[in-house]
Structures are given as structure tokens and as C-alpha cells.
């Protein structure tokens, strides 16, 4: 294996691993950076697939047996153009996402959000059940008087928990409605422009 091939291999490995790491992020900007790195890694890989380097593949300049393989370079050129166009499109999507929601996060899908909401609710009820058991224990151990105060605290905690869930649901719903309303989005654009 020649030195160039090893250098290419190391570069490909570094680019692809960094690219994969960044693509797994939440922020779309980082994903774009990941796509660029991964794309470059794959392009280098195709170049490496073309075999050992050679002279310029032009008749009359290089003798035929010493020519490099031109086909991988042509393919890489096409792939570069495609990646460029996609990065431009993704950047505009980041801008639009920021206009609509204030960040560039890739959201969970609907099913995931439903599952998360249910899990949160169950966890809240689990906490309340634990608290109830604790209050009962106090009542049994130290008599009603001490239990009454604990019970009052428990009721307050349940109220607080309910309020918190409701607040979170409403905030999520409002964010959704706002994001789905193109008129509002256009307003924020104009605000930004005047600022």
C-alpha cells in the first residue's frame, strides 16, 4: 500500500466518522456540517476506488498505460455539484425553521411526541403515588396530627404537578399553532428586517 493510499484512507476515516457524529445531532446546522464532511469523505473514497494515481488522461500528453482513471473524477465532480445544491437548500431550510420556531432543531415526529407526553404523565402519576404512600406511612407511624400536614403538602404538590403538565401541553400546542400559521411567520420576517 502506497503512502498516498494510506493518507487517503486516514482522511476518509476522519471525515466520515466526524460526519456521522454530526448528523446524529439535533441542530440542523450541525447536520449540514455533517453532510458536508460525510459527502467529502465519500468523494475521497470514490477517488481512492479509482486505483493508483497516474498522469492526466489526455491523448498525446500521457502514454496510455500511465494515465490515471478519469471516471472516478467525473463521478466525484457530479457528486460535489449535487452536495453543493443540497447544502444550499438545507441552509434555506435552516433560515425558514428559525423564522418559524426560533431555532433550527429537527423535531420529534408526532408519534414520538405522543409517546413522550404519555410517559411524562405516567411518571408524574408515579411520583404522586409514591408521595401518597409516604403520607400513609407517616399517618400510621406518627398518628393523624403529623399526617395532616403531610397530606396538605401532598395536595399542593399534586396541584402543582397538574398545573405543570397543563402548562407544558399548552405551550407545545401554541408553538405548533404558531408554526403552522404562515401569516404570523411572515410578520416575524418583517420585524427582523426592520430591526
Amino acid at each position: 500500500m502506497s503512502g498516498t493510499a494510506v493518507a487517503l484512507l486516514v482522511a476518509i476515516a476522519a471525515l466520515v466518522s466526524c460526519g456521522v457524529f454530526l448528523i446524529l445531532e439535533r441542530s440542523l446546522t450541525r447536520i449540514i456540517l455533517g453532510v458536508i464532511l460525510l459527502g467529502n469523505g465519500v468523494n475521497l473514497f470514490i477517488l481512492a476506488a479509482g486505483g493508483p494515481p497516474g498522469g492526466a488522461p489526455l491523448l498525446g500528453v500521457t502514454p496510455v498505460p500511465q494515465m490515471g482513471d478519469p471516471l472516478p473524477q467525473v463521478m466525484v465532480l457530479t457528486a460535489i455539484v449535487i452536495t453543493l445544491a443540497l447544502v444550499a437548500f438545507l441552509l434555506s431550510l435552516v433560515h425558514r425553521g428559525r423564522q418559524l420556531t426560533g431555532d433550527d432543531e429537527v423535531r420529534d415526529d408526532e408519534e414520538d411526541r405522543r409517546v413522550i407526553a404519555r410517559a411524562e404523565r405516567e411518571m408524574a402519576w408515579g411520583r404522586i403515588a409514591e408521595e401518597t404512600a409516604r403520607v400513609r406511612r407517616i399517618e400510621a407511624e406518627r398518628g393523624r396530627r403529623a399526617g395532616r400536614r403531610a397530606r396538605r403538602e401532598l395536595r399542593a404538590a399534586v396541584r402543582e404537578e397538574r398545573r405543570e403538565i397543563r402548562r407544558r401541553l399548552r405551550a407545545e400546542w401554541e408553538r405548533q399553532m404558531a408554526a403552522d400559521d404562515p401569516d404570523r411567520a411572515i410578520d416575524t420576517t418583517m420585524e427582523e428586517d426592520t430591526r
Partner: protein
Amino acid sequence: MSNALVPLPVVLPLFAAGIKLAIGPRLARTQRGITVGVLALIVVIAAVLVHQTDAHGPQTMRPGGWPVPIAVVLVVDRLSALILLISSVITLAVVVYAIGQGSADKDEATPLAVFHPAYLALVAGVSDAFVAGDLFNLYVGFEILLTASYVLITLGGTGARVRAGMTYIVVSLVSSMIFLIAVGLCYAATGTLTMAQLAGRLDALPDGVRLILQLTLLVAFGIKAAVFPLSAWLPDSYPTTPAPVTAVFAGLLTKVGVYAMIRIQTLLFPGDRLGTLLLVAAALTMLIGVLGAVAQTDIKRMLSFTLVSHIGYMVFGVGLATVAGLAGAIFYVAHHITVQTTLFLVTGLIERRGGSTSLTRLGGLARVAPALAVLFFVPAMNLAGIPPLSGFLGKLGLIQAGIAAGTAGAYAMVGVALLTSLLTLYAICWVWNRAFWGERRQVPEPGQVIEGRRGIGGTAITAAVPPPAMTGPAWALVAFATAFTVAAGPMVDYTRRAAAELLARAPYIAAVLPS
């Protein structure tokens, strides 16, 4: 044998898209004429190609007249000709529907300036993937159709579409990268990308290398075809787009992935190695898809899950790797493209008439709009596989192929396929009961703005009786799907010949590489 018709399904829509981008939103009537005219011309070309490939074998075209390993060769055989014909018919119907919707929404500038060019580019990409005789050209075809689909899925830039678009685009990008890696691997291993040459050279490779190549390609196409466990992106991203876009995505894009799977499994990696893996993936796709469908309360989401589920039927046929299995898969592709597109178009009509696609809000539509009820009922029963419709024939073909294969795995698949079909019927009946039967619930007054739904350009949709320009294409597609039943005999024979041609490999290779 060189045929000048082969590149036209790619060249014509690209050319038309270029003209449209140049003139922008002006000359509305001429522009609509160009779009419809070009797509109608492709239907004719595809029909001629079906006839020619059936009579004279695979048709090829070498652009620039270069000899084969240098030229980026285009090939149409029976399989690609048939799928090209079906896809061109539905793209034509969908664009007529979209034009109808644009004029119903009084929203014509955005569709003309953005929707039409992107749509034509999508058609060009789909056609390119079907006629590609070269692995890198297949990649380019995928990229053209994906890039166009990125524009279409975020059309209008509303919040829901941008959110769904992000997931869709990131997933598609990853699948493209995997495909590109596979292309590089194939080139490194064999020194060619022309599929007819690959077919010979791959056979000579060591077993392990072939397995890596096959698996990488299958993963890339599995993401595009939405085969479980690579299907999670689909049901979330499709329902937010406007009705015509969802319809063409659901009908075509996943089938391009299935087509690519059929192509590599027959031409590049013959024999049924990995057949068991495909059968297991098919069974899981069917079951998990349909269980998801049963749990939905929105028609669009329910249909997206059945879409995933029924991809399993086609993968089942591919996994069997027999003539009967592949013939069943090809018939099923043709049937499913048509029926899934029709159902999404009809859902767009339901949304317009009933004010929603949520099953908690719709009710009693059969009395309000009996024609719409028929329009939903026929393709829905077709999807579930009620005789004598084409869904029944497609499932029958696959199940017969499974029983003929006779292995334990194939028998298990037959059971899963029957169960899936039953559960699909359950999901469809539930939609029918909730939305069309029962007491009449709030049907919005004509002119009332429908909340949370957006038209092609992101403008609000108002409730109305859908105009004939929208119902017409839906009726035409229902009639087209019914024609499959009428012409079932010749069509099944054709798919058998196509499958035999695929498994023989020699006709394809001989057409590309005349010795």
C-alpha cells in the same frame, strides 16, 4: 438495438421544466398546456415502449454513440416499460388534479412558478431511475427526484411542512450517501458501473465482497422503499404536504426504491441469497405497517401506514426470487402505484368537502356527498383486496407464488400476507364507518376556511364542492385501476414474461453488450 424513444421520458420533462423556470408565473394557460402536453406525450411514448420491448426485447440507447463501457447507456426492458407507463399515467392525472386545485384555491402564481417545474423535474428523475442502465446514472436519477421532492415537501414553507421536511430530507440524504458508498465499492471491486457488465464481473468476486455490496445497496434502497426497520420517516413526513404532492409521493417514490431492489436482486445478485432476510423484512414491514394503520385517527396518516405495510407485499415477491413471485411483485407494483395515488387524491377531496381528514371530526359524508363516497369506496376496497379488483389479483398472485415455493418461510409469509390484508380491510372499514356512515356531523359551509390545512402554495383552503377538474382525474384513476381487472389476463402474462426475462438475465445483457 438503439431506440431514440428511450431517453425522451427523461429529456422532455427536464426541457419543459427549464422553459417554465424561464417564464415564471406568466402565460398561465400556455404553461398549463405545456405541462399536460408533455406528460401526455410521455404516456404515449411509454405505451409504445411497452409494445416494442414486448415484441423485440429490451430497447437501449447510447447517448453520443460511444461504445458501451464509455457511454452512459439507457435501457428499457419489460419491467421498466410497464412501470414507466403506469407512472406516466398517474403523473398526468395528478397534475390535472393539481391544476384544478390551484384554480379552486385561487392560488395560481406559486403553483406555476414553483410546483410545475419541481413536479416535472420529479417526473424526469423517476423516469431516469427507471431507464438507467448504469449504477451511477441510477444514483443521479434518485438525486434528481429527491431534490425535486425536497422542494415539493416544503412547498409554501409552512411550519408543519418545514418540520416534516427536515426529517425527510435528512433521512434521504443519509440514504443517498449510503448509495454513493455502494457505487464507489462496486467500482473499486469491478472497475465498471454499467449494470450489464457488473452482472458478469460480480459473479467472479469472492463471496464476502459480494455480500457487502449487496447489503449496502439493499440498505440504500430499503430506506427509499420504506422497508421496516428503515420506514419510520414515511408516515410522519407524507401527511403534511398538499394532496397532489402526497399522492404522487405515495404512489411513485417508494416504488422507485422497490424497482431498484428488483433490478439488483435479479440482474446483479441472482439466486436467492439474502432471500430469507428479505422475507423477514417483508413480514415485519407488513405487520408493523398495518398495526400502525389500525391505530390512526387521521385518514392521511392511516393511508401512509398502509403504504408502508403494502411495500411488504412487493418485497415478499422479490424475496421469493421465482418467476411467479417476481411476476406477482411487478403486478403488485403496478396496482399499488395506481390505487395509493387515487386514495390520496380522494382524501384531498374529502378534506375539501368535509373540512378535515380527522376521523374524530368527520361523519355522515355518504349522505352529503354520495359521489365522493363511491370514489373512496372503490379504491379502498381495491387496497384491501376485495375480488374482483386488482388488489385481490395482486395478492392472489403473490400468495400462489408463496405456496408454489413450498418452503416453511414462504408458507409463513402467506399467513402474514393474509392477516395483513384482513387488518387493512379492518382499517379501511373503520374509516368508512367513521367518515361516511353515521350521523352527519359538522360539514363546513362552502367558503368557510379550513383550519390547519394548506393548499399547494401554502395559502388557506376554503371548503367547497370540489370542481370537476379535481374529481375528474380521481374518477379517471379509479377507471384505470378497474381496467387492470378487465385486462388481468394479458397483464399477468406480461408480468410473467417480464419476470422470466429478469431472471434469465441474458436478454438484458445481450441488448446492452452485443458481442
